[in-house]
């Protein structure tokens, strides 16, 4: 993963030059908003001067900063502009923020372009955003130097003001904007010293806060244009089925209904890409005047379904070919569990081996073996999948919530038979994403529907459609074994993990590198139930399983769980086993030490009746550790407090990073205790929030305290890393409370009581 570079300086400059110069007028009603952190509305300038793809400056000194990556609650619309504003050296109060349009030429990226996911946003845009701000500051200084006939090096900037000390001259950015926009881009703009940061690491309020609390239109589902029709789809009621025939006579006759027809999301023979996962490429579309009318007509459809044949699909992703096999048949979760247990008992595919694990297990005085499993999970974004589309001839305008415009654009272009240049994608704020909206088949569906009815259309999934359409977190299983010698020293470690349809194994992560004899194997079981990325993919299961096992191991060895981990990390740091260890042992130990200190671990006795668990994990380039305190009330856990320690490098917006951590902690507790999607004869058994148990306020932790490691390392993401370890911290605290280990998620599920 380290090979993925940020935008090269050259491509950044080229594209910035392309974008600089002209006058830009016009603000979109959905995206053009004032910075809510300033109470008074900013006066809009009469003229804007474009500096580069990321910013423009008005003649009155007001700056608009464009956020390149779509927003789904991780707060990039605030944190990305913070980075530009820092290097531009502007007063944050004079900053407006806009969501950029999808434009790969303007916002190039070595890998995924304007992609939200993988906790990559801040990490991959850190350098381009800094360069953008610094380049504009340089141009402003050059313009002032020319105007004042003084050397540019003697000009200083601060909060949007240019100053020349010797001559006593000064001007605000607005005065110089026109001339500065014509200055050539610097080859290598000088960046600020980290110690001089004035905006970064100072908490700034969400720039969309005011619009959110006043209910302004900003989500895809809020999108509306004159003459827009509403569309819904009907998909097969079970995985393993496909469309056979439709009797739409009753539906068509219902009030407000314009049309009913079937659509095929892909052309025959279309080569799908990694994020074209879609269980139901053939659908019935219902189009009408209003949502309620379309909902009623949908109920009146009479559709026949038939078994879908076995199929497979090979995609190339990040240089690797991956084949997905979709067997025919109707699957059930009870069968999945049984099949996983069978595979778990057989040898897997060896992914990593250090030393001689087989020999070490043979001579072990004691072997500890434990198995963990977890069900499929639904993403359940609060805003159901939806998209707006307006197809006019060979031109397509689409707008809505999506994490990865660059993934779906080629798919849409191929389906419509048009070049990507003919597609305009507007990225609306997403009502949650969690990985689900990286798979935007619903955008193609909306475009096909608009094309057919020759009108602008907003496609909306009902909650039931959303929950039963596929793209779930896979079901997983992991078996851990540890070999101890007669003195209870750890001499070998073995992990074998698999799932439906992928393995959660990260073979090169801790404790790989810390144990001489190490073996990691994986396996998988094909399934026609479609899966996809879900907040911290794979880590979201294996992190908790591994951290539960390490807790049990520490206990068997008579060691404190934090000290045990620190000993392993010391070994990994000083004398690592193997070469490809995918973590920095010092930073990993750092979050454990910080959480140890801040929680008073081992020093302060928790309150009477309170049980504590600890866990840590490294994924998506950020380190996280949690100590969780709980009490049991009427056989159910009440999480009293979570203390978290995070190392994500420089913390761009501390309040927002704290909010992300607290959300991930609470979300993780919810999924660990209740999260579960089950299937019977191919059908998702939970179809809405009456059956699918989500965490609610009463079950949220009573208090969460978040601490960040202070360093000057370039920032990494916050959306995912705090999520996986909370599963382990909760499991370990539950053991302390009940005396019983939990091995199978959901820990509580439908049970009335635990312990």
């Amino acid at each position: 993963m380290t090979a993925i570079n940020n935008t090269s300086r050259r491509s950044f400059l080229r594209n910035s030059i392309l974008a600089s110069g002209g006058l830009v007028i016009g603000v979109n009603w959905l995206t053009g908003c004032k910075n809510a952190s300033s109470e008074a509305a900013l006066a809009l300038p009469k003229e804007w001067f474009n500096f580069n793809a990321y910013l423009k400056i008005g003649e009155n000194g007001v700056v608009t900063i464009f956020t390149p990556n779509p927003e789904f609650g991780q707060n990039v619309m605030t944190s990305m502009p913070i980075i530009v504003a820092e290097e531009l050296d502007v007063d944050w109060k004079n900053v407006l923020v806009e969501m950029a349009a999808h434009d790969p030429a303007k916002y190039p990226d070595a890998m995924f372009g304007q992609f939200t996911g993988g906790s990559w946003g801040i990490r991959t845009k850190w350098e381009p955003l800094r360069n953008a701000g610094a380049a504009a500051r340089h141009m402003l200084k050059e313009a002032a130097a020319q105007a004042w006939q003084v050397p540019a090096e003697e000009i200083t900037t601060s909060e949007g003001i240019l100053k020349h000390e010797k001559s006593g001259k000064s001007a605000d950015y607005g005065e110089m904007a026109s001339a500065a926009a014509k200055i050539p881009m610097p080859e290598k703009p000088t960046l600020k010293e980290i110690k001089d940061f004035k905006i970064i690491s100072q908490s700034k309020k969400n720039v969309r806060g005011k619009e959110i609390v006043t209910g302004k239109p900003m989500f895809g589902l809020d999108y509306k244009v004159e003459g827009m029709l509403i569309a819904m789809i009907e998909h097969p009621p079970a995985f393993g089925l496909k469309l056979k025939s439709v009797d739409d006579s009753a539906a068509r006759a219902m009030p407000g209904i314009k049309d009913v027809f079937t659509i095929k999301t892909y052309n025959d023979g279309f080569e799908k890409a990694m994020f074209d996962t879609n269980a139901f490429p053939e659908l019935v579309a219902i189009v009408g005047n209003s949502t309620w009318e379309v909902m009623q007509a949908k109920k009146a459809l009479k559709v026949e379904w038939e078994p879908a044949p076995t199929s497979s699909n090979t995609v190339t992703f990040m240089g690797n070919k991956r084949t997905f096999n979709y067997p025919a048949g109707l699957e059930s979760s009870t069968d999945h569990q049984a099949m996983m247990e069978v595979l778990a008992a057989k040898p897997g595919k060896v992914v990593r081996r250090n030393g001689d694990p087989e020999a070490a297990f043979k001579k072990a005085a004691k072997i500890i073996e434990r198995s963990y499993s977890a069900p499929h999970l639904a993403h359940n974004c609060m805003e159901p999948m939806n998209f707006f589309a307006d197809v006019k001839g060979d031109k397509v305008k689409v707008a809505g919530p999506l994490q990865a415009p660059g993934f779906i654009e080629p798919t849409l272009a191929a389906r419509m038979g048009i070049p990507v240049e003919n597609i305009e994608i507007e990225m609306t704020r997403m009502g949650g994403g969690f990985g689900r909206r990286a798979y935007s088949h619903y955008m193609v569906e909306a475009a096909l529907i608009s094309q057919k009815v020759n009108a602008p259309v907003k496609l909306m999934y009902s909650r039931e459609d959303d929950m039963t359409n596929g793209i779930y977190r896979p079901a997983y299983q992991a078996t851990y074994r540890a070999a101890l010698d007669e003195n209870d020293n750890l001499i070998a470690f073995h992990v074998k993990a698999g799932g439906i349809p992928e393995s959660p194994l990260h073979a090169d992560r801790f404790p790989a590198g810390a144990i001489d004899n190490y073996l990691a194997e994986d396996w998988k079981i094909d399934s026609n139930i479609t899966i996809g990325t879900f907040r911290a993919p794979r880590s979201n299961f294996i992190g908790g399983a591994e951290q539960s096992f390490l807790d049990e191991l520490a206990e068997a060895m008579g060691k404190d769980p934090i000290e045990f981990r620190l000993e392993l990390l010391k070994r990994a740091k000083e004398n690592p086993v193997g070469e490809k260890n995918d973590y920095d042992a010092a930073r990993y130990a750092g979050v454990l030490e910080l959480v140890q200190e801040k929680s008073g671990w081992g020093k302060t006795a928790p309150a009477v009746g309170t049980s504590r668990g600890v866990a840590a994990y490294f994924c998506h380039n950020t380190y996280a550790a949690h100590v969780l305190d709980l009490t049991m009330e009427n056989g159910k856990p009440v999480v009293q407090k979570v203390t978290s320690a995070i190392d994500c490098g420089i913390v761009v917006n501390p309040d927002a990073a704290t909010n992300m951590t607290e959300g991930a902690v609470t979300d993780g507790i919810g999924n660990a205790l209740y999260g579960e999607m089950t299937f019977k004869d191919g059908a998702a058994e939970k179809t809405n929030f009456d059956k699918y148990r989500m965490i609610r306020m009463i079950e949220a932790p009573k208090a969460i305290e978040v601490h960040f490691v202070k360093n000057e390392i370039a920032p990494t993401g916050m959306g995912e890393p705090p999520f996986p370890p909370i599963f382990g911290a909760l499991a370990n605290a539950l053991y302390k409370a009940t005396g019983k280990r939990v091995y199978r998620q959901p820990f509580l599920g439908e049970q009335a009581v635990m312990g």
Partner: protein
Amino acid sequence: MASFTLNINGKKQQVEVDPTTPILWVLRDHLDLVGTKYGCGIAQCGACTIHLGDTAMRSCVLPVSQVGEQPITTIEGLSENGDHPVQKAWLEHDVAQCGYCQAGQIMNASALLKSTPRPSDAAIEGAMNGNICRCATYVWIKAAIKTAAG
């Protein structure tokens, strides 16, 4: 189709809709008041919460025909300038992540504070338990309600 005159955010609004249409869709599709959100359609998530009189109601299961002249308040009408104490507290605590559920949370919280100006933690948890926040900002929501209660 039938004609209904509704009292929404202090204004009389006339709509021609099917009498079974839930207020949620009247607001969103017919009156362009899209601050009230669709989340589940079965009164299980609270994203669609409005006030009917002073009471928090799930607008996704409230047919237009049952409303009569009772005043409806939506997030757009909660305050003139977005300065209701609950809205201010939400901004002060910077509660939102994705923000989709927050209008419903705010409408529910403001109804709670109207009936119970100084709610206990248990009262807040009880009243807010019908509102799902998928981003799980619950700790911040609770803190903001306490701030708004003063």
